[in-house]
Every structure is written in structure tokens, then in C-alpha cells.
């Protein structure tokens, strides 16, 4: 076989592609994809009925949900990206992978991170920052694996035999540079022990960095690599030319330049400086057209090939993926408009939106490109087109059930939260009323998830049978003229020339994403307003600090926010609106992104210790209808006091005003505070043995939430703006 007719000028060089490593990544993606979906279905049922938490600490929603998100994004989708990129990159560059050993090393390192990371999440080791939960040793390993990936991309381009880099490669390059920047900046942390660290950023600053990362992980891990894959696999599978080269250029540069600014739309109505919120919103709105540029180029490439879309499962998956991409990228800008966001934020609408992207776009794309690559690299044909079609329909119907139930649940709950009567009273004062109302939708969603999982199993079987019938064959050899023989194009425009210079291209892509990052992050990160100086906030006591780590370990932030937004309903339901200053000691910040349970920013002092004790042991004893898991092991597990001094030292090094005395006496101090709580609990019949257990530490932390703000208002240091007069 040859890629080119023998040309007259230039030496012909012979080469082959490394598809062995591509095969490995495909199989890993399928394996982890199944695990990720299984975890997803499990946590969906856990919200329908708390009994699906099985009373086991390592299977509670708070720990399984991070496992689900990390497995779906980094294990399932991540491995698929590596497979698709290595497959297409070699062919687009007409060169064998730069370094196969490196690609294989990266492969095993990545699987080790997934397996170890997944286990660590189940055991409760977590940063408490969404999609960045893995602890610091994993952060370092991820950075290494990612750099290996980038070196292989750039190295392969260096050895290329095709003068110009194609639009797919532009997207791969921007993926590599941006994810590297995001991951490294968001992971700057100080270790306390092998599996515990604190971020250098606190409160508002941590929130800003985290959502700059979180939003752009969606942009540059779930979007740009897949746009690149779309540009390779759609025209290949349809045998159609790409609709518009000009559109590729415009939408690529505008997309990567604008995307990086949009992070603060996750922090609207928060204590983030308002200009950053406004900028985040308007850039999100402006992202609509660049995103649709990709959709248009994908769908219009299928012009004249729609009959094939009906017959060929590859195209069916790809075309549907691009359609869902278009829907999700319209919904996203809509949800970032402040007033819409106020309704949607913290509700299931966001969850539905995310899944229209991850299932509709990523999973459908993965299915399409796998069905394209697998018969080719295993040298066979697809085992069953029928089964692939069946998978397509179960996935589509499952996803529609998912999206519709989450729209209904999210909008219903959002409206119930804010409903006020003529007398300024909440129509649904009990938070639990708004939970019970949407549980039927949780069942619909869970069964939608089951359909998606079943469809995935069809794919596993189909691919297993396909590979089983594979015919052994020698690695095909291709030939093409060397790059040195390429003649410069006459009338090449500026961008065309740039496509011949991958290194310059990489630097420009890096600059494009740095502009927005720097303008948005630097003013807030360098402002001393958000650092502990003269503040009414008292640092966490040793016991509260330990309790906070229990809160993070159990993943409480997955269901409870700590951010009271400035609106009457939130003031009436929760209390004083959140202040930037109150988060100065919060490493990491714990504002959360979903209120499956109520906000906790003002929970301190709201209930007595006994209420919290009963609530952890059996949530339904104090809140009938609650869907919270049982946390009875908090009563028997001792809290970790061995690392307490080290924790306080790390905090002190980051600027928390702990004196040396306080650090030296940390353990005694913690014990004394714990005894106070235990004594009060014992009055209601709880054994005093509780004093050295995680339960008291967590209660101490919960009672601290909002307590300093309340005190500061009493002391006149802070004015509660709820009077409406100031």
C-alpha cells in the first residue's frame, strides 16, 4: 500500500505506524469506561434511594461521585484521546510515533494513576476540588504522563513528512499546552504527609483557580481533543472534504482564545470580584459562535453523505455526537447568563448539561472513532452492525431520559428554592420538601443511566467479537517523500505558512490561552484583600481543622454548598450572605457546585451537637425523607491527631496566624475541645468514648461554619446588608 503515488521529485522514504500502543489505549479506555459508567449508575441509584449507599464508608455517594467523574474524564475519555490522537497524528504527519517506549511508559503510568487514584478516592484521600481530587503524588505522576504525551506529539511532528499540519493537529497542540498549564497551576500544594496536602490558594483565590481549571478541563480535555478527532474521523469515514478551511482557522483561534476566560461563570453570585464574574459571563456568551463553528464544519462535511449516516454506525455515532455538541454549546452560554445561572446553579440542570456533553459528545465520539479504528488496526471487519445500531439507540434514548429528567428536576427545585409568598416567607421552608419532590426524576435518570450502561456492554461484546476474528498481518509499510523535498507553496497565506511551523504554532497557541488566564487570575491572586491580615475570622482550632479534613474526606462538598448568594430567598433560608473575608482560611475552598442537601455556610449554631450526632447516625431520624447516607462509622473511627501539628505548621507557612504555642499544644487543645462536645452529648446519653472520634471533630467544624460572621455582626464589625438600607 502507499499513501501517495510515486512522485517525481524527492527520495521516497519507507515507514510504518505504531498501532500496537493505540490498541492498548483503546482496550484501557473500554475497560475504564465500563467502570466509570457502572459507578455513575450506582450513584444515580444512591440519589433515588439512600439504601444504595449500602452503609459502607467507601461506597457512599460522597466518595463514589468523585470516582465516577475522574474515571469518566481521565480514564475512559483520557485513554480514548491518547488512542485517537496517536492513531490520527501518525497518519496526518506520515511518520511513525516519535518514541514508542515513551508512549508505552505513558500508557502504564496512566493506568497506574487511574487504578491507584481510584482506590485512594474510595479510601477518602481527596483534595476536595472537583475533577482535581487526586492527592499530590498522583498530581506529579499526571504531570509527567502529560508531558510525555506532549513530547510525543511534538516529536512526531518534528519527524513529519507532511509539510503542513492539519486542523486536527492544531487542536491536539492546544490540548497539550493548555491542560499542562491548567493542571500544574491548580495543583500547587504543600504536602502534609504522603496522602495529604493543602493548596497554596485559599478561599476566593482557590475558587477562582479551581474553576479556571475546572471549566477549562471541560474545554481542553473534553472539547478540543475531540474537535481534533472529529476533523480527522468525520471526513475519513464519510469520504467527504471538510466543509470550510477558513471556518477551521477562525473557529479554532477564537475558540481557544475565548474559552479560557469563561471559568468564572461557575462562580456567579459568589464573592469573586464582580468584574471577573461579568467578564466570565460575556466571554461564555461569545463562545457560542466559535463552538458552533466546529459543529457546522462537522455537519456540513456530511453534505451528500447523509445516506451513509443511516447505514454506517461510525458515521451515525459521529454525526449524533456533533449534534449533541451543538446542543450543549448552546445551552452552556445560556446557563452562563447571570439571571439564568441564578436559577440553574446548584441544581440538576447543570448535571444534565454536563452529561449531554460527556455522553452525547464524548461517549458518542469515542464509539464512532473506535468502530472506525478497530477493524482497521486489527485487520478485520466489525462483528455486528446490528449490535452497534442497538447500542446507538439505547445510548440515545438513555441520554434523552437523563437530560429531560435533569431539566425537570433542576428547574423544579430551583423554582421551589426561590418561591416566596406575599409575606416574604419561603413557600417551601423545609429544604427536604424540594428534595422529595424531585426523587421521581432521580429514578428516571437512573434508568436512563442503566440503558446507557447496557448499550456500552453491547459495544464491549461487539468489539470483543471483532477482535476475536482479527487476522494476523505484517505491519503495513507506507512510503512518502521526505519533508526536505517539499517545495514551498506559491501564494501561501500567513496562516498557511504558520501550518508549516508546528513549534511556532505551539507557542502562539500557548500565548492565546495565557492572555485570558493572566488577565483574569493575576489581579485576584495578587490582591491582599483575600489573605488573612486584619480579619474578624478566627483561624480554625486544631479540632475544627481535623473536622474540616473529615468533611473533605467524606466528600460532603459533593452535596452541600458553602456559599449563600445575595438574593432574598437565600438570605431567608440560610442567613447572612457570604462574604469574601470569611473564606481566608479555607484551604481548599468548599463552596461546592450542587445542593443535593442544603447549604452549610451558616449551619454553625443552628442546631445543637446532639442534632448533628443523630443526623450522622441516622439522617432520617431528624429529617424524615432525607436521602443522605448513614455516617455511623464517624462514631467509631478515631480522628487523626498524629499529623495535626504538621498540618498546622503547613497552614502557618501559608500565612495562617498560628503561634508556636498553639502548634505545640495542638493535640491537648483538640482534646479539650472534643471533651466539651462529648460532655454535652453525654447529657443525652451518648458515651463519652466519642471524645476521640471523627464525629466530634466534624461537629466542631460544622458548628464553626458561619459562627465568626454571626459574632462579627453582633460586635458591629460587619454590617448585615439584609436590612436593605445600607
Amino acid at each position, binding site marked *: *500500500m502507499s*499513501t501517495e503515488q510515486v512522485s517525481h521529485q524527492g527520495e521516497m522514504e519507507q515507514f510504518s505506524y505504531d498501532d500496537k500502543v493505540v490498541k492498548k489505549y483503546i482496550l484501557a479506555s473500554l475497560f475504564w469506561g465500563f467502570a466509570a459508567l457502572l459507578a455513575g449508575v450506582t450513584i444515580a441509584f444512591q440519589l433515588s434511594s439512600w439504601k444504595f449507599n449500602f452503609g459502607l464508608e467507601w461506597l457512599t455517594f460522597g466518595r463514589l461521585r468523585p470516582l465516577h467523574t475522574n474515571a469518566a474524564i481521565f480514564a475512559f475519555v483520557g485513554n480514548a484521546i491518547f488512542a485517537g490522537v496517536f492513531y490520527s497524528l501518525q*497518519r496526518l504527519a*506520515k511518520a511513525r510515533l516519535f518514541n514508542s517506549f515513551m508512549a508505552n511508559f505513558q500508557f502504564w503510568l496512566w493506568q497506574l494513576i487511574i487504578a491507584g487514584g481510584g482506590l485512594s478516592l474510595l479510601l477518602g484521600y481527596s483534595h476536595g476540588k472537583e475533577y482535581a481530587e487526586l492527592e499530590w503524588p498522583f498530581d506529579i505522576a499526571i504531570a509527567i504522563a502529560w508531558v510525555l504525551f506532549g513530547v510525543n506529539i511534538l516529536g512526531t511532528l518534528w519527524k513529519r513528512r*507532511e509539510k*503542513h499540519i*492539519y486542523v*486536527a493537529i492544531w487542536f491536539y497542540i492546544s490540548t497539550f499546552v493548555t491542560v499542562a498549564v491548567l493542571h500544574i497551576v491548580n495543583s500547587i500544594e504543600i504536602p502534609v504527609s504522603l496522602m495529604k496536602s493543602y493548596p497554596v490558594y485559599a478561599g476566593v483565590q482557590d475558587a477562582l483557580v479551581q474553576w479556571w481549571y475546572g471549566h477549562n478541563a471541560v474545554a481542553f480535555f473534553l472539547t478540543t481533543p475531540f474537535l481534533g478527532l472529529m476533523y*480527522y474521523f468525520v*471526513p*475519513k*469515514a464519510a*469520504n467527504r*472534504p*471538510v*466543509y*470550510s*478551511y*477558513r*471556518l477551521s482557522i*477562525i473557529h479554532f483561534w477564537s475558540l481557544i482564545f475565548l474559552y479560557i476566560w469563561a471559568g468564572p461563570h461557575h462562580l456567579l*453570585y459568589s464573592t469573586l470580584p*464582580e468584574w471577573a*464574574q*461579568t*467578564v466570565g*459571563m*460575556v466571554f461564555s*456568551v*461569545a463562545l*457560542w*459562535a*466559535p463552538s*458552533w*463553528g466546529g459543529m*457546522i464544519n462537522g455537519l456540513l462535511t456530511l*453534505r*451528500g453523505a447523509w445516506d451513509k449516516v443511516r447505514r454506517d454506525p461510525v458515521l451515525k455515532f459521529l454525526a449524533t455526537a456533533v449534534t449533541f455538541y451543538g446542543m450543549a454549546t448552546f445551552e452552556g452560554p445560556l446557563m452562563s447568563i447571570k439571571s439564568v445561572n441564578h436559577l440553574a446553579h446548584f441544581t440538576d440542570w447543570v448535571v444534565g448539561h454536563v452529561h449531554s456533553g460527556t455522553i452525547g459528545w464524548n461517549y458518542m465520539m469515542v464509539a464512532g472513532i473506535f468502530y*472506525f479504528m478497530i477493524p482497521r488496526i486489527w485487520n478485520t471487519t466489525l462483528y455486528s452492525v446490528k449490535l452497534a445500531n442497538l447500542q446507538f439507540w439505547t445510548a440515545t434514548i438513555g441520554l434523552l431520559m437523563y437530560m429531560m429528567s435533569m431539566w425537570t428536576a433542576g428547574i423544579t427545585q430551583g423554582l421551589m428554592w426561590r418561591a*416566596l409568598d*406575599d*409575606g*416574604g*416567607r419561603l413557600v417551601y*421552608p423545609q429544604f427536604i420538601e424540594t428534595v422529595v419532590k424531585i426523587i421521581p426524576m432521580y429514578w428516571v435518570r437512573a434508568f436512563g443511566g442503566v440503558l446507557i450502561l447496557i448499550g456500552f456492554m453491547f459495544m464491549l461484546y461487539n468489539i470483543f467479537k471483532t477482535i476475536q476474528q482479527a487476522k494476523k498481518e505484517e505491519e503495513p509499510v507506507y512510503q512518502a517523500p521526505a519533508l526536505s523535498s517539499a517545495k514551498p*507553496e506559491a501564494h501561501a497565506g500567513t496562516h498557511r505558512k504558520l501550518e508549516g511551523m508546528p513549534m511556532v504554532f505551539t507557542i502562539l497557541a500557548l500565548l492565546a490561552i495565557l492572555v485570558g488566564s493572566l488577565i483574569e487570575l493575576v489581579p485576584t491572586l495578587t490582591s491582599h484583600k483575600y489573605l488573612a491580615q486584619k480579619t474578624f475570622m478566627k483561624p480554625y482550632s486544631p479540632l475544627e481543622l481535623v473536622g474540616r479534613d473529615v468533611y473533605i474526606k467524606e466528600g460532603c462538598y459533593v452535596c452541600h454548598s458553602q456559599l449563600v448568594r*445575595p438574593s*432574598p430567598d437565600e*438570605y*431567608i433560608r440560610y442567613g447572612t450572605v457570604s462574604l469574601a473575608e470569611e473564606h481566608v482560611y479555607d484551604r481548599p475552598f468548599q463552596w461546592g457546585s450542587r445542593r443535593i442537601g442544603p447549604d452549610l455556610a451558616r449551619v454553625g*449554631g*443552628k*442546631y445543637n451537637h446532639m*442534632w448533628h450526632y443523630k443526623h450522622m447516625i441516622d439522617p432520617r431520624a431528624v*429529617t424524615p425523607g432525607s436521602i443522605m447516607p448513614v455516617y455511623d462509622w464517624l462514631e467509631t473511627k478515631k480522628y487523626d491527631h498524629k499529623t495535626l501539628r504538621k498540618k498546622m505548621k503547613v497552614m502557618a507557612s501559608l500565612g495562617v496566624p498560628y503561634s508556636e504555642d498553639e502548634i505545640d499544644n495542638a493535640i491537648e487543645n483538640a482534646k479539650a475541645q472534643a471533651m466539651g462536645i462529648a460532655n454535652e452529648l453525654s447529657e*443525652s446519653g451518648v458515651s463519652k468514648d466519642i471524645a476521640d472520634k471523627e464525629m466530634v471533630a466534624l461537629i466542631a467544624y460544622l458548628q464553626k461554619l458561619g459562627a465568626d460572621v454571626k459574632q462579627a455582626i453582633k460586635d458591629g464589625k460587619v454590617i448585615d*446588608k439584609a436590612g*436593605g*438600607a*445600607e
Partner: protein
Amino acid sequence: MSTENKSENIILDDEKALVLDHDYDGIQELDHPLPSWWIATFVGTVVFGVLYGMYYLWAGGLTLEEEYAQDMLKINKAKAELASKVDVFDQKAYSTWTTKVGLAKGAEVFEENCMTCHEENGKGDIGPNLTDEYWLLSDGTAESVYSIVNKGNEDNGMPAWGEVISKDEMYAATAYVMSIQGFEHKSGAKEPQGKKIPRK
């Protein structure tokens, strides 16, 4: 299906003039102009963004805090009007709830809102026992019980139910609480707290 060779690509008649001399692993590109509606959308969102940003950043658009303050003014006015009605304890209106029907309603309100802390039949748990002769906050009159239900007590963790339930519901709950004195619990009644004042 597909191939590495560009000659197998399907090129429509109206596209023949638009094919660029690009070939990447058999992939070709067309030189279609940008769709005009797409350009309009892009320009439209950017113009909106600039105007919106300028209005809120520099041209006096209300900040979130100002908007919140305005909303709270309205709400506080409504709340004050309501409170002025709710705070008054009218003995005559209250007495209509001490009937059998009224007490049944009171039991219902109690079950929905109070039982979480005061337990079944008011035997007490997180909150105090409401069936003994001891009081933490009240002086044993219906009026003072009503006032505590209405305003709550922050230090003891008692919510201000006047902001949550209706006046009639508070009357009913008060009547119910007054009616359960001396209730004989099968087990687990909380020990007395506060001063001993018999109910009036």
C-alpha cells in the same frame, strides 16, 4: 468505506471549484466562505458582551449587592407587614384552636415541624420535654409559648416559626403544646430542664 486515497472522496458539483490543494491522509478541504448567519451570531454576541460589560463595569449598572439591597427592601416591607399581624396574640382567636378539631390540626402541625427536636408527644430530645412542668423560656402561659414559637430563640436553636408557618398554624401548635402536659410517655422522656412553673 474509507481509504487513504483522496480520489475516492465524494465531491459535489457545486463544490468542484472550492477544492483546495490540501491532502492530509486523503482528507481534502473546501474553501467555503464563512456562513453569514454564523458571522452575524459571532458579531452579535461580541457586541452584546462589550455593551453588557461596559454597562455593568462603568456605566452605572447595579452591582449584585445593590440589586440584592433593593430586593431586600421590598421583602423586608412585606415581612414587617406580616409580622405586625403575626406578633399580636389574640386570646379569642387562640381559643378557637383549643377545640377537638383545633387540637387535631395542632397535632398535625407539631408532627410536621416540631417533632424533629421535641419528639413524639413532646417527650423531648434535642429540644426540651414539653410535657413536664418545667420551662426554659416560657412562663407557662399560652401567650408566651406562642411568642417563643413565633420568634424562636437563637441561643437554644429554636427556629422563628413566624417566618415559616402561618399564624393559624402557630395557634394550633401552641394549643397542642398546652394540651399535652402530663402526657404519660411509655419510655424515654427527657429529664426536666429550667424552672418549675405549672401551666396556666
